[in-house]
């Protein structure tokens, strides 16, 4: 905040700065504009004009088709089936990950178990590991436990892959909590859980918001786990979308494709535009570790 006053702004480079920012912001906006414009054009309009041309006649037909009746192979149910599947996967995934992550982070930060260092090292490893290393053994485990291809199985996979980062996020937040607060609660006779629920949780609003955004975005945007673990009727929206766009029979309907793509992107985009500050903090938490 204070540095703004101290950092020099030279008149000469000022216009260059704005030029760079404006060009970059426009370039960044192009894909969003392309999706929006294309999704409200008629098919002849798409084929005759350029991607960035304004539509000759505005139509919502592509949106309706993308939502209700776009085909992926033999099924023509649009992306709505995937949308509701994604909701069913994302909501419990977020709730369980954050419930487990907050209490694990609390245990790691304030009660300092033995093996603390080892656990933190394992957590770092888990956060950075490429998913492909363990996907196949997880499929074996899930099949053995009879949860492969079920909703529960997909949710559990997401919990497995989001829990390490969320635990570290909460742990880093709780490390900064003064020990006196916990000691005072302990003197009052509060145990591990009552301290957590009565003292710690009420002051955790910020990390909870940050993690809800982070985990929601992660799970909603996931493709790999949905593809492998969800089974044919439980596929999330990203997988449906890729199937719809990839299923080219005859002429490609770019307007419907772009409408379906935009609908899939909308929930995380809305969250982003409504909560920019917290979204950025979630991003940074991937970078800041303990």
């Amino acid at each position, binding site marked *: 905040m204070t540095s703004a006053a101290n950092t020099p702004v030279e008149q000469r480079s000022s216009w260059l700065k704005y030029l760079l920012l404006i060009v970059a912001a426009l370039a960044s906006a192009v894909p969003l504009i392309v999706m929006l414009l294309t999704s409200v054009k008629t098919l002849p309009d798409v084929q005759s004009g350029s991607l960035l041309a304004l539509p000759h006649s505005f139509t919502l037909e592509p949106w309706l088709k993308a939502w209700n009746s776009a085909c992926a192979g033999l099924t023509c149910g649009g992306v709505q089936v995937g949308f509701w599947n994604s909701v069913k996967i994302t909501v419990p995934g977020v709730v369980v990950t954050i419930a487990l992550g907050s209490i694990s982070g609390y245990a790691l930060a304030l009660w300092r178990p033995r093996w603390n260092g080892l656990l933190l090292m394992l957590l770092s490893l888990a956060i950075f590991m490429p998913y492909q290393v363990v*996907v196949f053994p997880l499929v074996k485990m899930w099949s053995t436990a009879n949860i492969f291809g079920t909703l529960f199985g997909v949710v559990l996979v997401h919990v497995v892959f989001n829990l390490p980062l969320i635990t570290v996020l909460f742990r880093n937040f709780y490390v900064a909590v003064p020990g006196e607060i916990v000691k005072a609660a302990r003197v009052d006779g509060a145990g591990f859980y009552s301290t957590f629920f009565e003292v710690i949780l009420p002051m955790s609003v910020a990390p909870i918001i940050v993690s809800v955004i982070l985990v929601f975005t992660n799970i909603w945007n996931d493709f790999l786990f949905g593809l492998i673990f969800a089974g044919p009727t439980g596929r999330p929206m990203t997988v449906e*979308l890729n199937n719809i766009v990839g299923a080219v029979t005859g002429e490609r309907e770019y307007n419907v494709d772009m409408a379906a793509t935009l609908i899939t992107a909308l929930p995380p985009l809305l*969250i*982003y535009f409504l909560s920019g500050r917290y979204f950025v903090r979630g991003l940074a938490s991937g970078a800041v570790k303990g």
Partner: protein
Amino acid sequence: MRALVRRFGGRAALTPLVVILVVCYLGGIGWTIGISFTDSRMVPRWNFDGFDQYIRLFTTPRWITAYTNMFIYGAGVILGTLILGSLLAIALDSRTRFESVFRTMLLYPLSVSFIVTGLVWDAILTPSTGVESMVRGLGWSNFSFDWIGQQQTAVYCLIIAAVWHHVGLVMVIMLSGLRAFDPEIWKAAKVEGITTARTYLHVVLPSLGPTIMTCVILLAIQVIRSYDLVVALTGGGPGVSSDLPAKFVVDLAFERGNVGQASAAAVIMFATVLVCIIPYILIGTRRSEVE
């Protein structure tokens, strides 16, 4: 009594995390490493045959393409986002009007799925719908832009889309580094009559070494993991020319039914990640011991 509650309370709370770390992560990693030393095909079986899978892997043209692509793609993504992201961070650092508008516009790509990123850029980069037809429509009827359809250039399309997706991440991390920079040094540089550009280049950026390192590691991890983007944008094609290791592993394990080979490739991916993060983990652990 209280100590008892404390100990068992903490232990019970950590049980799910520890079970996941030990069973899914350590167990999974161990299983994959083990299977990579067997002759497993469709069905994993524990019939060891030493380094055969690794030897076969590095004589498979598709893997060599995929692994080489990872370095081309990685260099492009890391350099591209670092240079662009740093310039944008510097532009935002000094008192800038509409800072939050610019930030919002530059960061939103990070919120969307790589499938979305891939499909939109597919429309933009495909000649019949995207840039080529647009420029031709403006009058240059011979203009040609078909990177996505050529074996030698398809991987650059992945770089373009990934830079678009990630540039905001580097921008915010670098911006927080710049804002933490000691203002006294700026004053000193000004007194000495050193230009802003030179101060950034010779004083500020070198002092942000750890911040830049963080960006490089985060991007490198993203590069090694890249799967969805390839699937949605190029499908690894034309042919297998824009394949990446992550896609190679999934294809071999789940479509080609070659678990042994897929495991060996996954182990190589994992080793590549370890080379990138071991310094980071060591620094982190030392820091938490100091606490």
